[in-house]
Every structure is written in C-alpha cells, then in structure tokens.
C-alpha cells in the first residue's frame, strides 16, 4: 500500500500576491480557489474535499466552504504552520485513494501586508515569552548562531542564499522583490536579531493560493498536464525553539528520506527543488537535511551560484519567500512552484519568465514545507506522468 501516484494536481492558481488592497484574506483565498478550478475546468459543485489553513481563520475549512457555498464530504484544517499544505496534500491523497472524495481543493489566503504587517498565529510560548523573543525571527536567529558556530559559516554564506533567490525573482515578473542584490547589500542591511539582518528575512506580502487534486483516472481529462504526488512525509519534534533537540538538524532529516522512499527517487533525481525559505538559514539546513549535501557543507555547496539561475541545482525558482511572495504561511506557494515547473516543462503555458526562469523538461520537483520555528517539516515529491 502506497500513496505514490494516487493523487494528481489538475489545476492551480494564486491571487493577490504582493499587495491586494481592499480585499480580505477570505476573498483572496476564494478567488484563488475559483481561479484554480477554472484552470482545471472543474465546476465548483464537484468539489467534495476541502483543505485550508490560514492565520486569519481558526476554522478555515469551514469558513471557506461557507464562503464558496459548498458542502465538503471531507475536510481538514490542520494547522502546522507553513508546512500545513504539504500535509494537506498527503491527507487529500489518502482521502482520494480511499474513495471518500473525488475532487480536493487545498487553499490558503492572507492580506497581512495591507492589513498592517506580519500576522502571527502563535500564542506566547510558555517558559520563553518572559525573555521577549520576537518569534519567529528570534528562533531562527538562535539556530543561525549555532549553525555558524558549529560549521564556521559566515554571514556572507547566508547572504548567498538571498542573492540566489533574488536572481530567480529577477527572472519572474510575478515576484514582489526584484532588482539587483549583492552579498554586501544583504550583510549591510539593518540588523534585526543577530546574526540575521533585514534581507536574511522573508518578505511580508499579501497572497492566496489554491490547488485542485483528483485521482489519476480522472486527471487526464483536464486541459492541464497532470502533476502527480509521488511521495510525501512529515515529522515534527518541538514547538518552542528551546525544545529543539539540535538547532542544526531539522526533522526534514526524517521526513525527506521517507518522502523519497515513497516516491522511489532521491535528491539527485530532482529537476527543481523548492524549499521553504523563511530565513536564509532555512535553505542551508534543508539542503543538508534532505540529502543534497552533507551536514555542515551547504555553504560550500551553494558557492559559485550553484542554486542561482544557471547553476547546477535550481532552488526556489520563483524567487522564494525571500524575494517572490511570503504572506505568512508560504507552503502552498512552494508546492505551486514545484508543480508549475513540471507543467512548464511539459509545454503548458505558465506565463512569461525571463530566459532560464522555467527549467526545460523538468519532470521531478521537490516541495519542502517548514512550519513554526523549524518545527514541523513536511516533504513532498511531485512528478510528470512519465515518472509514474
């Protein structure tokens, strides 16, 4: 029994990425759903599975179903931060494969930027709050300090991650932060929480996203190249950064191998790699934990533009949370970029990008989600029909 190939993405959309004044989080999320269903050419009334999580709705699946006027036979609103949506894909694949539902929609929406700035879903952490942490950045700064100490990485090494992401954003007209960016720009930016400066941090934008999943038998009926969920796995072991066993190894070291085992492939097979880059440290940690390089070697691994446009390993090809879009819980955008690269590789019209922005012939993409403070890790592998 495996879930490999048991669900396929047949439609997707984003809405309101960047700034969306005058529209609330639910309206943006519903717009993304309507657009994703149009992309799949599936009527709203056929949707019987609904999966959603946001920072604005305590019961997002219920609120979204009501707004859309549908009655899901199965829904899930589990919230494990930005990794929720990879977990929703796993849950949707189970529900589809079990015959509980026929059409699943996974959705997210946020208007945090125009609503006043970063929107936290987090309650104060007991035994931490009194010391005044500004989560999430305090937690990621602590992890970065430890990483630099253990492996001799520098702020310049971290800056390479932001510069590579900006390189991809500069090929993507949909990206929010574009324009030249140097290592010196990143290391010279205002310090927020040592050793992380402003440009080590993700954007604060608006944005919504949705994807439509069906069983493989129905997937070929639609207008879009179906992209199959080949493997997915999750793991988490802490909620507070002070309870993380090692600040330099995340649960991705467990979720990654299990996802790859289900998918029947490994890191070296990936044509594109999409990693949840809330901060520059994330990309280094996940490249290591997911097996692209050994522990402590990511800084050397990415040197010379390896993960930047034109490099050997295309990572965060939309520009990432650092330069494309980050409305608070970025995971569904990670998934969408992984799938869009495969659709573009198959010849679907995914819109214009500068030369190199779409990876020619991409058939396998990794979408890795991170939630909380390096807490929840959910890895997913998506593939073209040829990879089944």
């Amino acid at each position: 029994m495996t879930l490999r190939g048991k669900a396929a993405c047949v439609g997707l959309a984003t809405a309101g990425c960047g700034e969306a004044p005058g529209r609330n989080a639910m309206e943006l999320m519903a717009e993304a759903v309507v657009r994703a269903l149009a992309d799949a050419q599936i009527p709203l009334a056929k949707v019987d599975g609904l999966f959603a999580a946001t920072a604005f709705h305590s019961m997002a699946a219920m609120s979204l179903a009501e707004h859309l006027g549908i009655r899901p036979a199965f829904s899930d609103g589990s919230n494990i931060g930005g990794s929720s949506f990879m977990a929703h894909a796993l849950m949707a694949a189970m529900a589809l494969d079990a015959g509980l539902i026929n059409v699943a929609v996974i959705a997210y929406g946020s208007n945090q930027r125009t609503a006043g700035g970063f929107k936290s879903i987090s309650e104060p952490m007991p035994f931490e709050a009194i010391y005044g942490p500004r989560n999430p950045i305090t937690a990621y700064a602590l992890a970065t300090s430890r990483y630099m100490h253990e492996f001799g990485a520098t702020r310049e090494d971290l800056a390479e991650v932001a510069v590579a992401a900006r390189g991809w954003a500069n090929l993507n007209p949909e990206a929010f932060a574009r324009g030249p960016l140097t290592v010196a720009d990143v290391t010279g930016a205002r310090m927020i929480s040592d050793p992380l400066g402003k440009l080590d941090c993700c954007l604060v934008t608006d944005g919504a996203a949705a994807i439509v999943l069906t069983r493989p038998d129905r997937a070929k009926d639609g207008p879009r190249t179906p992209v199959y969920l080949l493997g997915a796995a999750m793991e988490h072991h802490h909620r507070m950064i002070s309870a993380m066993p090692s600040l330099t190894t995340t649960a991705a070291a467990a979720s990654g191998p299990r996802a790859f085992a289900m998918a029947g492939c490994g890191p070296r097979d990936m044509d594109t790699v999409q990693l949840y880059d809330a901060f520059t440290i994330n990309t280094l940690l996940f490249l290591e934990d997911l097996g692209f390089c050994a522990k402590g070697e990511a800084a050397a691994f990415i040197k010379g533009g390896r993960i930047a446009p034109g490099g050997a390993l295309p990572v965060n090809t939309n520009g990432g949370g650092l330069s494309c879009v980050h409305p608070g819980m970025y995971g569904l955008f990670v998934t969408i970029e992984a799938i869009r690269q495969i659709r573009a590789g198959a010849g679907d019209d995914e819109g214009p990008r500068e030369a190199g922005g779409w990876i020619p012939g991409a058939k396998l993409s990794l979408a890795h989600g991170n939630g909380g403070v390096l807490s929840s890790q959910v890895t997913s592998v998506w593939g073209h029909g040829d990879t089944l």
Partner: protein
Amino acid sequence: MQDGYFDGPGPEARFKAFLAEGRFMIQRSRATGAHVFYPRVAAPGTGETDLDWVAPSGLGTVYATTVTRQRPEQGGDYNIALIDLDEGPRLMARVDGIAPEAVAIGLRVRASVGEIKGEPAVIFHPVEG
C-alpha cells in the same frame, strides 16, 4: 504511579511558586535520573510519572545566542540565549552582566532568580574567572 501524583497545582504553577520564593527548580525522573525542563506532568518520551523537583547546580553553557535589536527609546538591544544546564536540559533565558553582543556560544554562566517586567525570572550571568 503514586497516589495523588496529579493532585494540586500543575508543574507550571509549582515552578512559578518556586521562582516567587527565589528558587530555580527543575524536575528529575526517579527511574532514569534524567533531568527535565520545562516542567512537565510526565517524563517526556516515556510518560513515566515519577518526576521530583530538584535544585540544579545553576551552572550552564551558552548553546545559542542572539541580540534583539531595539531602539534605545524602546529599551535598547537585549540578549536572548539558549542555555544548556550542566544537568542536561536546555532553556531560553537572558545573560546579563555583559554586553548583549558579547554573549558567546560556549560561555559558562550561572543562574539566579531576578526579575523581568516585574515577574520573577531565571537570569544568567557569566561565571567569574
């Protein structure tokens, strides 16, 4: 499980009551001898209901550190660190008595009960010498 183990105030309330008396207390499993922080109702991972309150040595080592940057008029920069107690558990805390950016990983520190915003809190200072 001994009778009455779950009776009375929970572990967080007991920890805070100790702090209010100026005492920094952590837990220890009777069966394994492993120390536990933050305070739990049962030993993490095993569920053993044999946690006693004990006084740690107070000595520890900075495991990770950051400086939260803040304008002077809002109170200025301040340190947040993760401290590995000599007994094993790790906790978030602040290291005082040294500039926030001078707090380095590996620094030996000692706990005391101080006050943050009117609340008793465990605060660390560098070990002299």
